[in-house]
């Protein structure tokens, strides 16, 4: 189930979106959404915004892991203008660094108001000078030379902090405009869907104490494929120990010769099964469904 482009999670490599948010809480959630998406897709997030910690003198630089923060001037934004060559160098370095960490691409998340200078036209008339040559032409990030693996570009702006004209001017530079509140909605925390070929259930989302009852009820009436209970968990992003234990208990209660088959478990489910010594109690299928 691929994420729709109407959410922060659906912005993929080659896409360029503007997401406006309101206040610090939404900003933190947006950033968390980008890191979660990057972790799921095997990408690295490069945040560019003012206030990035540059470390104390003498400290080793904090290079980050799945995500890192770069101060605007280090990313090529100086005096409100973009040095595209400098930014390209940074992106190429980041792509190489990501590859060393086993990550295959970048999500570039820029706090646009922090890096672009407010022009007199914007301040006075709410229009950015030089815009109007196509809907995305105004965002300097849209004009970057092509990279072999283009990053996903997400420009952010705080509508609680920016004056209306300034916000609208930044927004008009983008073809894809999203509002944080719906863009952060990923649907229900847990979806349990019937699937066929083989018959079974698909679990999508996150499983924890708040919804383990939903899983328990679904397992009671889950269709069997012959003597096996198949669960497709490739889109189950999180499961706590209690949820994994429930699966193992269901497997243990099945009659001899019956099996619980778990398809494509993610890192968290796999780690719990391995570290709790339960991996042998059910059948793990790494490959595809059917």
């Amino acid at each position, binding site marked *: 189930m691929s994420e729709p482009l109407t959410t922060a999670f659906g912005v993929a490599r080659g896409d360029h979106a503007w997401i406006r948010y309101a206040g610090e809480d939404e900003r933190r959630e947006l950033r968390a*959404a980008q*890191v979660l998406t990057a*972790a799921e897709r095997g990408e690295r997030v490069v945040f560019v915004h003012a206030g990035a910690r540059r470390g104390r003198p003498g400290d080793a630089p*904090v290079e980050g*892991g799945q995500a890192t923060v770069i101060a605007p001037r280090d990313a090529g934004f100086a005096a409100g203008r973009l040095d595209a060559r400098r930014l390209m160098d940074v992106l190429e370095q980041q792509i190489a660094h990501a590859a060393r960490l*086993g990550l295959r691409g970048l999500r570039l998340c820029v706090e646009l108001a922090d890096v672009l200078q407010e022009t007199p036209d914007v301040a006075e008339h709410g229009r950015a000078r030089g815009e109007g040559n196509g809907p995305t032409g105004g965002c300097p990030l849209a004009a970057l030379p092509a990279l072999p693996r283009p990053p996903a570009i997400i420009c952010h702006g705080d509508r609680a902090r920016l004056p209306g004209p300034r916000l609208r001017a930044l927004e008009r530079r983008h073809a894809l405009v999203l509002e944080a509140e719906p863009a952060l909605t990923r649907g229900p925390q847990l979806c349990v869907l019937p699937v066929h070929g083989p018959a079974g259930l698909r679990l999508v989302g*996150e499983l924890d104490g708040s919804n383990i009852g939903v899983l328990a009820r679904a397992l009671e009436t889950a269709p069997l494929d012959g003597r096996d209970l198949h669960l497709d968990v490739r889109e189950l992003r999180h499961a706590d120990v209690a949820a994994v234990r429930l699966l193992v208990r269901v497997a243990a209660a099945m009659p001899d010769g019956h099996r619980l088959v778990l398809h494509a478990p993610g890192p968290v489910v796999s780690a719990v099964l391995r570290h709790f010594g339960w991996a042998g109690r059910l059948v793990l299928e790494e490959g595809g469904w059917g």
Partner: protein
Amino acid sequence: MKRSAFVHQGCVYAGDEEFLRMAVPFVDEGLRRDEPVLVTTTPANLDLVRAALGRHARHVDYAETAFFGRRPPQRVAAFLGWRHRHPRAARVRILAEPVWTGRSARQVEAWECMESALNAVLADTGIHMICPYDARTVEPEIVRNAHRTHPHMVAGTDVSDSPGYVEPVSFVRGRETPLRDRPGDAVTLTFTGDLSRMRHAIVMESAMLGLAGEQLMTFAAAVSELLTGADGDALPSVALWARPGEVVCDIHLPATTSLDPFIGLHPPTLDPRPGDGLWLARQICDHLDVRPGGDGTTIRLHTPNVRVAEAGRGV
């Protein structure tokens, strides 16, 4: 002695012959009694034991000790895993020589605490374990502590009570040094009851501080597991910061009674227990401290960052 009793003996030796005078009779007696036997020691000692056992050597399981549980919680899991492979044996024997050379002071402390904790954690497992200490290479202080963590000492086939033995809770509590203060740039997150949102925040901050991929997601899951069940008026908090080579995380649980110092070392079962989160955290982290305090308990986790993991992969 109960048939299922855990027997834990130390042995300080200073030469190959002295080592074999203890090891060979221990293994031989196990084989004579049809008890499964595991020898996990240094490569040199493995060769000595194999050669000395001759044709009986093939009836014994061997493991190079450096790889039989690289950290104390994994060592406990490895002992239990091997024990569970012999469910029909009432008693089993393990000769387990820890690795001490090249360890930091913090690691030595953790391994000594584990030696003591085994007396509680492996109770009623039917394991007879002898832990050899090579006085030629092991620091005298570590050898002295072997007398405090093993109720009995062995020399050859002679067993004597260890007069310095200290009960495990006292030993571990006595070794608890105060945690170093958090740095000023630690990021603090307060849990407000939405576990999913808290987990996402932990993922984001940990990703910034140096974790990635499976390790990032599993670490966040372990921290979130420690917060599971937290409710009431006093809310737990999480603080995260980077140190050279690692990410450090404090989980402050403003609860109630102080935790059992061995919580999370007992083997997990299919029945839920309070130590599940600590079991997972102990398995995936490099080091873990549990410190009771006046206003609750602080659990401090240390996990290597991606640069260390990268070096470990030999990239």
